[in-house]
C-alpha cells in the first residue's frame, strides 16, 4: 500500500460509514487482517486491490461481513 501506507503506520478504522470507490478498508481474510483500496463496489461484494501494484497485483473480492472498517486516520 506504499506510498499511502508504510510498515509501522498506525490506522484508525470506522465501520458505520458508507463505502466509496477509492476508500481504504481493513478486512478479515483467512483469519488475518488486510488493508486494501476499494476499486469497485458491486451489489453484495467489494473489489479491492493494493496501491503498490508491483508487490500486490492480485485483486480480491471482499464479503461485506468480513469488513472491519474504513480507514479514517493514519498516525
Amino acid at each position: 500500500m506504499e506510498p499511502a501506507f508504510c510498515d509501522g503506520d498506525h490506522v484508525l478504522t470506522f465501520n458505520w460509514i458508507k463505502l466509496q470507490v477509492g476508500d481504504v478498508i481493513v478486512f478479515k481474510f483467512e483469519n488475518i487482517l488486510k488493508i486494501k483500496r476499494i476499486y469497485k463496489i458491486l451489489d453484495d461484494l467489494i473489489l479491492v486491490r493494493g496501491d503498490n501494484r508491483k508487490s500486490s497485483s492480485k485483486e480480491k473480492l471482499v464479503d461485506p461481513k468480513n469488513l472491519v472498517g474504513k480507514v479514517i486516520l493514519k498516525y
Partner: protein
Amino acid sequence: MKVLRLVDRIFPPQVVFAHCDIPCGIYDPKPAQIAAETIVKMVGKIMVLSDEKMSVDDKNACVRYIWTKEEHARKCKEELLILWTDFFKPEHLKMFPKLHDTFWKATKLCSQNKQTVDMKAAQELKKAVDEIAKMFAKAKAAAKK
C-alpha cells in the same frame, strides 16, 4: 497523534497486512469448465435416481452425487473469481464490455446450482463458463500480439 500512539502502547492494536499473495501469473479456465461439466453430469444422475424407489445403495449414491455437485459448484465459483479478479484487468473491458455481467451471472449460477437440482441452471452455467473460456482465449491471444 502522539496521544494515540501512547494509547496504542497501553492497548496494542492488531497488525494489518497489505500483501496477501504472490502473483503467480498462472491462469486457466479449464478447472472451471471441468467443474461445470461435472455439475451437469451430477444433476443428470440425481434426477434419474429421484424417479425410482431408492435402495440403501441408491441413497448412498445420491448423497455422493449431491456432495460432488456441491463441491464442484464451490470449485467452479472459486476458479471463476480468480479469473475475474486476478487475470482480467480493466483494459479487457474494452474488448469485452459485458465482462463483469458475464462473470457476475456465472458466479450466481454456481450458487444456484448448489441450492437446486436444475438441469437448466446446470446447462446455463456450463454455457457461461464456456463463454468465459472463449473470452480468456481471446485475451491471451491479444496479449501475445
